[in-house]
């Protein structure tokens, strides 16, 4: 989406406020993915590549339904298929549409060193601006969900944009538009939470006592949420993290170490400067030269 949208609330590697005259007064947006309704048809993957003009390389069968095998610069969303044998001995096919979660507190944005390569809009969407991307991969390091991918062709980072271009003109994301079962819905975050609550109630009445909403608070909540049949065990869904948050190491690296590091450098230089002003240089004078000559002379006299 264009940078002139005047509704950027956060921008990578930037210390001053961004154009933010326009807010999301109708509420922040969210995509709700109801895993219990997903049939794994991959229409969302196709819609994504159509709308965003992406074509991943034709791969080879890796022995499971995941196709392509992983997210890539060309595949911004991916159905991940997990076979789960529940305690009753029944097989459950847990199919999770993987992709960017659009965290309220995005680890990618925190880690990015390039001003404006990653932005967060007032409506909650986290977007990459590839023209500012320098290809360092720090977003990959910062992401708690293993989402961004660096293109081998141009060394830029790519991921789901939540169709920020479509959303900005009042359309729903392409995957939502195409989903034939209504497993993916889109609207204000509030509406989606309400919709999820209804779905969870329904699932509970059908025997999924642990059904719940996945909107992890460790990253401030997300703008892509899941309805899970087993919300107490999100890791069943192809390793969805139970309690995702920005790693403490990333927090240290991108937090206190920045001011402390610069302070250490300036302090070292300042101590040197003050030492020179206060105590002054250590000079070799004529007396030292004389002493050296004298010693050398004595030395020469000693040696025959």
């Amino acid at each position, binding site marked *: 989406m264009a940078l002139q949208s005047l509704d950027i609330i956060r921008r990578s*590697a*930037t*210390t001053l406020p961004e154009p933010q005259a326009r807010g999301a007064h109708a509420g922040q947006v969210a995509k709700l993915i109801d895993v219990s309704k997903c049939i794994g048809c991959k229409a969302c993957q196709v819609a994504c590549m159509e709308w965003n003009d992406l074509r991943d390389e034709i791969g080879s069968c890796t022995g499971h339904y995941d196709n392509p095998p992983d997210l890539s610069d060309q595949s911004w969303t991916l159905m991940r298929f997990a076979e789960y044998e529940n305690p009753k001995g029944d097989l459950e096919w847990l199919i999770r549409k993987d992709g960017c979660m659009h965290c309220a507190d995005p680890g990618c944005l925190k880690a990015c*060193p*390039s*001003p404006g390569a990653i932005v967060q809009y007032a409506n909650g969407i986290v977007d990459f601006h590839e023209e*500012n991307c*320098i*290809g*360092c*991969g*720090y977003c*990959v*390091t910062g992401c708690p969900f*293993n989402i961004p991918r*660096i293109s081998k062709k141009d*060394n830029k980072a790519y991921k789901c944009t939540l169709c920020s271009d479509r959303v900005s003109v009042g359309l729903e994301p392409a995957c939502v538009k195409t989903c034939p079962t209504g497993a993916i819905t889109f609207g204000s975050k509030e509406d989606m939470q309400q919709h999820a609550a209804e779905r969870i109630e329904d699932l509970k009445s059908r025997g999924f006592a642990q059904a719940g909403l996945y909107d992890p608070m460790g990253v401030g909540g997300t703008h892509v949420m899941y309805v899970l049949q087993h919300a107490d065990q999100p890791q069943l869904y192809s390793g969805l993290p139970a309690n995702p948050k920005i*790693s403490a*190491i*990333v927090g*240290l*690296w991108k937090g206190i*170490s*920045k001011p402390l*590091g*610069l302070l*250490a*450098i300036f302090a*070292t*230089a300042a101590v*040197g400067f003050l*030492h*020179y002003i206060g*105590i*002054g*240089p*250590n*000079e*070799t*004078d*004529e007396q*030292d*030269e*004389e*002493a*050296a*000559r004298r*010693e*050398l002379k004595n*030395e*020469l006299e000693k*040696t025959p």
Partner: protein
Amino acid sequence: MNTKRKAEEIVRYETPTRINHWIVAISFVLLALSGLALFHPALFWLTNLFGGGSWTRILHPLIGIVMVIAFALLGAKMWHENAMQPRDWQWLRQIKDLVNNREDALPEVGKYNAGQKLIFYTIILCLIGLLLSGIVIWRAYFAVYFSVELIRFASLLHAFCGIVLICAIIIHIYAAIWVKGSVRAMTRGTVSYGWAWKHHRAWFREVTKGQQK
């Protein structure tokens, strides 16, 4: 060697060593500038010196390789002259005399004093840390082989070693400005007899031993 050299000068660094030192030095300056540019947003403008953010990202690790190789050669040459000796520890205990320019109160010093030796080891440790962590976070070629947890740790370690190294080199450069006559050792290769006698007396005696003049 150089026949035009004045009589009262001692050769401290031969030409190859000096060239090597300045390869390391120039690499270091480029690395510090490009590294700081990606370390703190307030310094991102430094990427303009390298042709923009992407060029900074491309060049930084390559210059790093140059520095590591050049320093390895330099360090190997200086290794045996940097072993800590008992008198070095005494020298460190009297660091107050040093900073107050009361050098005559300090124990005799060989080719390198204890401060120089500690800087030498600090540089080695930092370079090992920077090289290993730098490979782990080198996204274009190597990062794919490492777990994200390791990459996170390496990112922090790289920043830490970088800051320590920059501080150590600031001390190194300041020492050269502070102790007059030192810079000449690395530019022209020579120091005066008086300089050697005052700052590195044991080394002075060693190199002038049996000198026929």
